[in-house]
């Protein structure tokens, strides 16, 4: 199963696996509740979700592996994904305004019947959003990253042509930021 091998190699990215694994166990056991806390920290905890790998139930969420990591480790993770033969579905962002963070979400999937959807997330401070580009590994990410830059203003470091794609060429606004006023 490709899922297990990918899980293993992705877990290898986290140098201090012990606390992460623990958290996975608790979160997976608690299911919805834990997910809720993690996504909506305003309710109970103020901290966002810790970095790590979570295995998800496909039927409930629509993807199998959910990885959160630092922008610095992004390229290593994408490299693993690329080696395993995944294709890039999309790149997008989420604006977590209460945590002063922007999240970049990468979706990967596979062409064969060994289905495995991987979601990689990385967070970057809202004031100075910057993540490395993956368009060197996946040229298809070029447009997706440009689109994310359009909508969220996230700078993709090393992107060859980071100009507005869907918005007008002179656009200096980022409509999907939660504090955007048209």
């Amino acid at each position, binding site marked *: 199963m490709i899922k297990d091998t990918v899980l293993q190699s992705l877990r290898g990215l986290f140098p201090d696996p012990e606390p992460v694994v623990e958290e996975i166990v608790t979160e997976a056991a608690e299911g*919805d509740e834990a*997910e*809720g806390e993690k*996504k*909506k920290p305003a309710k109970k905890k103020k901290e966002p979700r810790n970095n790590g790998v979570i295995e998800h139930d*496909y*039927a*409930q*969420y*629509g*993807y199998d592996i*959910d990885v959160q990591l630092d922008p610095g480790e992004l390229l290593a993770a994408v490299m693993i994904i690329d080696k395993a*033969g*995944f*294709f*890039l*579905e*999309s790149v*997008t962002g*989420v*604006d977590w305004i209460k945590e002063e963070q922007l999240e970049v*979400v990468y*979706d990967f*999937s*596979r*062409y*064969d*019947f060994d*289905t495995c*959807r991987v*979601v990689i997330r990385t967070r970057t401070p809202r004031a100075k959003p910057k993540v490395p580009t993956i368009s060197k590994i*996946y*040229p*298809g990410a*070029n*447009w*997706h990253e440009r689109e994310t830059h359009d*909508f969220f203003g996230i700078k993709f470091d090393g992107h060859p042509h980071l100009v*507005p*794609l*869907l*918005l*007008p060429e002179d656009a200096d606004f980022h*409509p*999907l930021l939660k504090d955007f006023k048209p």
Partner: protein
Amino acid sequence: MSGPIHIQPGETFILNVGPQHPATHGVLRVKMEMDGEYIVKAETVLGYIHRMHELMGENRTYPQVLPNLSRLDYLGALGYTHGHVLAVERASGIEVPERAEYIRVITVELNRVASHLFWFGAFVMDLGGFTPLMYAIEDREYILDMLEAVTGSRLTYCYYRFGGLYNDIDDEFIDRARAFIPRMRKSLKKYDALVTGNIIFRKRLEGIGPISAEMCRKYGATGPVARGSGINFDVRKNEPYSVYPEFDFDVPVYDECDSLARYYVRMEEMEQSLRIIEQGLDKLPEGPIMPKKKPKLIKPPVGDYYQAVETARGSFGIRIVSDGTKNAYRFKLRSPTYSNMSLFDEACEGMMIMDALALMGSLDLVIPEIDR
């Protein structure tokens, strides 16, 4: 035909194909650097029909977004609305009655046939043959009439609801659908003889516009574009959703990687869709079309949900990040043509303009769906 290019410095010129050009089927613009008839470099410029559906998805309640999805792709709208309702149902755990799911599949497949028919006509028109478009539209009209009688609109359907359907199909629809299948099969034979066999047509497509499997993977191409490059990928089979596992159908895959392979894939897909419709009409269970207990207000629990469906153009994904309110926190649409189109810049380098436009036609573009 890609030929050797010996570019003299300063000998190239920029050709703006679009935003108003007969071959781009809408407001797409490709900035091509040309050396005579050869394309040296191409840059696609998007956004001429960008409407920010994703922001609308955040500003509106879940049911209010329903009509938006069919505005994405006006040719195969039902596939997109299907993806949306499935995503919201997955997020909020709504059970769908079996009859509703069957009707959804039947109508989606009908819409897929309609979409491919129109593509077929428009593609041949790209190559300069106008008449097949008219024949294709005649058959497509039959489907649209049928869908209009049941959904109430012809292109921008708003037919699916969270948990079921807007209204049930009647016997008239079933009779017409049954009559449609043999009629369509006959038409497909006609198209085969008129277009597929035609030497001019074949000469224009055979070996033209190669897109390798590796390129598909790197750019995330899905749907008939990927299947024309020997990739056996169809969300209906790979990640079965709805009631598709209960149907017996094949996924056409061709290894030639050229425009003709993509043509064949779509033509065969129509036949497979007819098979699905046939089986669906036979198996159609009785029962309600809406669940008994349906939440009055749709408020999915907090979380990040993803749903992929196979539309006429490829794998359409929808991501809903919910914060537990009646509006989505983030509403991401992953449109298949966006990825398919992004490989055009690389694929058309070194081609002649007429071949590049044939390649563009074979990608099956619907611009509102790229720009969203």
